[in-house]
């Protein structure tokens, strides 16, 4: 697999070379454009709010009466349920805000459970995850926000080859166009991967705390605008959410999280797969950077130490470009639905 640094160097060279080959001829600045753009904008003509003529008032009255009748019919016949236009966005889980000590205790306990697990038999690692994310296309006049949910099954063999199957379901923010989950086609959405082609972030990652910490910080090149704590929390969320981390790696992730002073207890929650877990949270943005803060939550099964859900919330409101209703908004979540070792590719572990 090409290392990031090599790929980035090649990218710089190739983009430089491509851009260099473009013959650019200076087009003189067109003064007509300048005059047009510099021309002061005339104030809009003041128009009366309501027409002053008798005919105009009659039309307004008629339109108002028709609208009132339509509104009355709509109220009388409206029924709750899936046909209503309530946005189909998931609500953030019912997290609370607590102190650091119980969060660190939970993480250290879960780490101890994971670290003491016996290795599972079977040469193939299986993980089923479900990812939910907001995707948005922002145009000049209109933006479209789409809710995208992808269920992904991954089988990773010991030689590094992998089989990936993905199923996607898109829903408009207004709740329309809900198609059944459909397999994703194409090279970028699953299929068989030869050894080295499937980029699992946990493959080759150490499993001791110092090694994991160092590797995670080295992973993030060019991210000098974040503190180490933010990078670690963000990276751990990515690594945990794949579902492919070993028990030892999970233990190291938990111990690193427990050491971050910003990690706080977020209480008992029921995740999006109806499983009860205990959550910890950490802010992964700069409180002074802007109006939107991102908080990362990790939902953990306190008995087994298994990660259940990783959720990122925009608070107190979503970014304005998304044009979503105000309030804390789920930016992304990943459910780790099933993980385990199996005998061969394509086989799911016993429930």
């Amino acid at each position, binding site marked *: 697999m090409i290392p990031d640094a090599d790929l980035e160097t090649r*990218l710089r060279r*190739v983009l430089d*070379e*491509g851009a260099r080959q*473009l013959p*650019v001829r200076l*087009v003189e*600045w067109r003064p007509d454009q300048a005059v047009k753009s510099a021309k002061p904008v005339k104030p809009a003509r003041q128009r009366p709010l309501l027409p002053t003529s008798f005919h105009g008032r009659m039309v307004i009255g008629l339109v108002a009466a028709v609208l009132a009748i339509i509104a009355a019919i709509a109220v009388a016949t409206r029924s709750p349920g899936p046909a209503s236009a309530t946005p189909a966005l998931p609500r953030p889980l019912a997290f609370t805000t607590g102190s650091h000590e119980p969060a660190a205790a939970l993480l250290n306990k879960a780490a101890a459970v994971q670290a003491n697990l016996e290795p599972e038999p079977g040469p193939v690692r299986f993980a089923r995850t479900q990812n939910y994310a907001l995707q948005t296309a922002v145009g000049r006049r209109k933006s479209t926000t789409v809710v995208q949910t992808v269920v992904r099954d991954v089988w990773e063999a010991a030689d590094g080859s992998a089989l990936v199957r993905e199923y996607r379901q898109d829903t408009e923010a207004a709740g329309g166009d809900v198609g059944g989950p459909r397999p994703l086609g194409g090279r970028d959405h699953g299929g068989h991967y030869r050894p080295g082609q499937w980029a699992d972030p946990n493959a080759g990652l150490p499993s001791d705390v110092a090694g994991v910490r160092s590797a995670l910080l080295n992973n993030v090149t060019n991210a000098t605008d974040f503190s180490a704590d933010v990078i670690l929390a963000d990276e751990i969320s990515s690594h945990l959410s794949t579902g492919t981390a070993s028990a030892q790696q999970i233990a190291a992730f938990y111990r690193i999280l427990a050491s971050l002073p910003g990690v706080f207890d977020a209480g008992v929650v029921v995740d999006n797969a109806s499983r009860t877990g205990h959550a910890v949270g950490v802010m992964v943005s700069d409180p002074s950077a802007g109006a939107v803060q*991102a908080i990362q939550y990790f939902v953990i099964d306190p008995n087994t130490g298994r990660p259940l859900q990783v959720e990122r919330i925009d608070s107190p409101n979503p970014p304005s470009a998304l044009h979503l209703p105000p309030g804390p908004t789920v930016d992304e979540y990943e459910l780790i639905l099933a993980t385990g070792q199996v005998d061969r590719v394509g086989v799911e572990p016993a429930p």
Partner: protein
Amino acid sequence: LEPITGVGVHKSVKAENGGALQERPGESDEGFDAFYRREYDPAVRLAWLLTRSSAVSEDLVQEAMTAVHRAFSSIESPKAYLGKSIVNRARSWHRDEQRRRTRLVYLVDDRVVMDPADADLFDAVGRLPYRQRAVIVTRYWAGWSEADIAEALGCRPGTVKSLASRALDRLRKEVEW
């Protein structure tokens, strides 16, 4: 959710290699004409990397320059304004272009001559979804900081990181295939 303070501080960054959004000494003091003459060439190249059409790039840059001209006296960094304006106009163009391409076979991109392996990578960048492509071009060609890219794309710096990571994964798959 209650606000939480004291964690996760990130600092503003400088662009990596003298990036396109960095102010040059005296930039804000110069006239628009000099600014136009100096920035036209890199602006067209940036627009071209984002659209891969020289005709479209020239139009986009003219539009963006008009917007800069309109605001020239009131903006702190015309260069940053120009860059963001180009990224946003290219995004709108992509949106319309995708609609057109569903109906028409229309591919008259400007071609470049490169070593086949490099050409594969260059073409793969051109096939990336717009936001991923914009992140790759502005980060690795123009040298913008993550904060600048996030502002231009209207997203959080964390999203820029994840877009870059997804784009690199995808490019890696393409070139290793």
